[in-house]
């Protein structure tokens, strides 16, 4: 049990605080203090954020390994399976912890105003507390089963919050879809967990398990299977192709939920998982190339779909899917260049993305709030005069997402592109694939800039147009909603520059995580290549600047005057394809859902048939009884007559036989 005032103890307190907040919020709901339910949540998130940021700043400088362990007793133990409550705080988890709690604090402040007066106010904040707790548990867990517990916890909270307006059929369907689709991935995750448990000498603590596997590598096929199983879980949770379909539908939940869970934190759990198990992936270059390929496919696909969407939140949702694809592309580079670069690029992009995407979602929430819950970009436009602060912060978020030079998204996207380019030039046998994916990534970066600014111009530029749902009093949001926007905008502006290119702080910080060393070590062992280090490349910065300016410029030319959108004749089929999401939902519906429903209907019919057969059989005794029941009429004479008649028949038979 660690001392409470050590860095480790403070981290554990930071993990536990949201749970306290969750319980207190629920208590507020029970005591009919609905209006106060946001207080425990905000206060607990804020103190957790303060604690973890404090620890982060305390440990920020230094050269030694940053790796703190805590063991809080046994959770359960069955045979060879021994599962302790084991926590591990290193550079990656500390950064994640600080990021999650920090963003959650401001989203909770935003929600307090956004959800004001809602019936399920206490339920909302309580589930949000549970979510933040699960996420903190996920990032600090050292035991792989504890990690799975956090993983399932965030999945549950996502389900509860997507289905927050449960009386609305589309929200209920979206929640169910989100839960079932991620469940598909979770099947893989659980299989993968048991595989690595078995390969890792039956250790359940991630550090020992990974060390064991790196020291005694199993066969390539076994390792590849395990890696792909783990990746399958990440694909489900982080909405990668082919399981990304749940994320756009998850926008049915309240907008702050989309900001927190479906943009900034939960969906990055898959990236975190792959970073945490990076040494395993480093041993299997084949798995890495699959990760990159899936990431590239997803990024391009989602960016293409985002081009023609009219729903502002859906544009952002597809952009999230696309950016997650970028992170996986970055992670996959670890197979060709050093894992330390891959992890750094992915986690760095995760960090910056969390800021600007949360900002963009909150901005869209602010727009939605003012427009009377209308989110269709065809119905409003020219809002930059009506909502100046929202406009400005949204612009900053869009610039960061588009990769505008010097903003956070620029540095991190740049790092991923650079890693891909390097991977294409490496001695890896898959180098040519990496080159192809590098091209895909560049195209995606261009598309990203374009669709982001299409949404921006359609919303804020052109003629002022306000839907009648706003009832004529469209206004800037209250201050409680603007403050989080401003804070996150500062983050989106600065976090990239402060964190990497000027100071190299994050790179050095990550170097201190043992898992990064382990991964580099495994990489050396698997490929006989010496792992390099990240270096800033001016060419790459130039290319990505060009891409960003190109996308923004094209959007400005086409949409500067705002809506309505004019699509040239030649582009119509492409636009229809994009607007209808490449018909992926329809394809899944026809190939997977319809046969499953058919089989379910068949099974139900068969069940009904078996049931009626059983009822039929049970009917036979009743029928016989109904025939015989009148015989029991309560008259002694009648019974006697029966006996006499029976005797008569018997005697007749005897007599007739004896005469024959």
């Amino acid at each position, binding site marked *: 049990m660690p001392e409470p005032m050590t860095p480790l103890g403070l981290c554990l307190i930071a993990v536990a605080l949201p749970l306290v907040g969750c319980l207190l919020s629920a208590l507020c709901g029970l005591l009919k203090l609905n209006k106060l339910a946001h207080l425990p949540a905000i206060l607990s998130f804020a103190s957790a954020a303060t604690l973890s940021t404090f620890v982060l700043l305390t440990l920020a400088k230094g050269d030694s390994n940053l790796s703190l362990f805590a063991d809080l007793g046994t959770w359960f133990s069955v045979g060879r399976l021994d599962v302790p409550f084991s926590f591990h705080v290193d550079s990656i988890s500390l950064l994640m912890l600080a990021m999650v709690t920090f963003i959650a604090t401001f989203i909770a402040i935003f929600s307090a105003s956004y959800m004001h007066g809602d019936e399920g106010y206490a339920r909302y904040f309580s589930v949000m507390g549970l979510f933040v707790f699960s996420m903190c548990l996920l990032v600090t867990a050292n035991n792989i089963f504890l990690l799975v517990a956090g993983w399932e916890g965030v999945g549950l909270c996502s389900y509860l919050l997507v289905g927050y307006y449960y009386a609305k059929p589309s929200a209920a369907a979206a929640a169910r879809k989100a839960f079932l689709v991620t469940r598909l991935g979770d099947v893989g995750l659980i299989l993968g967990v048991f595989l690595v448990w078995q390969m890792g000498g039956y250790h359940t603590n991630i550090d020992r398990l990974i060390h064991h596997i790196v020291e005694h590598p199993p066969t390539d096929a076994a390792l590849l299977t395990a890696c792909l199983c783990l990746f399958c879980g990440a694909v489900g949770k982080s909405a990668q192709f082919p399981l990304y379909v749940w994320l756009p539908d998850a926008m049915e939940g309240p907008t702050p939920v989309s900001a927190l869970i479906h943009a900034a934190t939960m969906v990055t759990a898959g990236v975190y998982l792959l970073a945490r198990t990076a040494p395993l992936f480093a041993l299997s270059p084949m798995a890495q190339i699959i990760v990159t390929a899936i990431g590239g496919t997803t990024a391009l696909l989602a960016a293409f779909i985002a081009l023609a969407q009219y729903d502002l939140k859906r544009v952002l949702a597809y952009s999230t899917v696309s950016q997650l694809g970028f992170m996986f592309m970055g992670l996959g580079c670890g197979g060709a260049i050093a894992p330390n670069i891959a992890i750094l690029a992915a986690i760095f992009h995760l960090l910056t993305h969390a800021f600007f995407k949360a900002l963009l979602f909150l901005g869209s929430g602010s727009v939605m709030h003012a427009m009377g819950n209308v989110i269709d970009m065809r119905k409003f436009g020219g809002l930059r005069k009506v909502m100046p602060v929202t406009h400005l912060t949204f612009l900053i978020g869009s610039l960061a997402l588009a990769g505008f030079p010097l903003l956070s998204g620029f540095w991190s996207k740049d790092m991923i592109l650079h890693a891909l380019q390097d991977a294409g030039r490496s001695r890896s046998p898959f180098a040519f694939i990496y080159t192809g994916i590098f091209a895909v990534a560049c195209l995606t970066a261009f598309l990203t800039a374009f669709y982001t600014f299409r949404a921006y111009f359609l919303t804020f530029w052109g003629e002022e147009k306000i839907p009648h749902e706003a009832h004529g009093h469209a206004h800037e949001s209250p201050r409680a909603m603007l403050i989080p926007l401003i804070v996150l905008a500062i983050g989106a502006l600065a976090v990239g520059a402060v964190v990497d290119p000027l100071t190299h702080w994050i790179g050095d910080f990550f170097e201190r995580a043992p898992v990064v060393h382990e991964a580099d070590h495994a990489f050396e062992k698997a490929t006989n290549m010496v792992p390099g280090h990240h270096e800033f490349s001016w060419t790459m910065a130039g290319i990505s600047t060009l891409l960003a300016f190109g996308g923004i410029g094209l959007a400005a030319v086409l949409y500067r005057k705002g809506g309505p959108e004019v699509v040239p004749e030649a582009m119509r089929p492409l636009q229809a394809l994009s607007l209808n999401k490449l018909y992926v939902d329809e394809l899944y519906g026809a190939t997977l859902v319809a046969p499953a429903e058919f089989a379910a209907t068949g099974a139900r019919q068969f069940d009904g048939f078996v049931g009626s057969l059983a009822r039929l059989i049970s009917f036979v005794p009743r029928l016989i009884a109904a025939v015989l029941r009148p015989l*029991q009429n309560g*008259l002694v*004479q009648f019974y006697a007559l029966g006996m*006499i008649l029976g005797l008569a028949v018997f005697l007749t038979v005897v007599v007739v036989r004896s005469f024959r």
Partner: protein
Amino acid sequence: MISLPHFLAIGAILFGLGLIGFLSRRNFITMFLCAELMLQGVVLNLLAFGRYHGSLHGQAFGLFIITVAACEAGLAMALFLVLYKRGKSLDSGDWQAVREAGVSATLETEALPAYVPDESPTLPVAGRIPEQPEVTVQEPFRA
């Protein structure tokens, strides 16, 4: 000469009469008497065959049956007593209520003929004209 068929015929007649009585009467006592009648028809059969074969087996069986019948009579009377106490009636038709649920009643039980008590239960005092007690028609026998 009285031969075996005569005995058998008498036994069969007794049995038949008892059977008809048992099936057609509803008073428990009468039904019981009819059952006894059937039993005696059987006993007569046994005696007749015993005599015909010149052995005592028939008589021995007859004695057995009479003993058993005595026991049975005791039991039956006790049962009737209990039933009478419960229903204030000796009509077996009254007990058709114990039939299976959902089966309609077979008999319309009608009241038994009124019971008229004996007008002169005791001997009159000598030398005096006996008082005529008031003749009352009581309630039907069954309650």
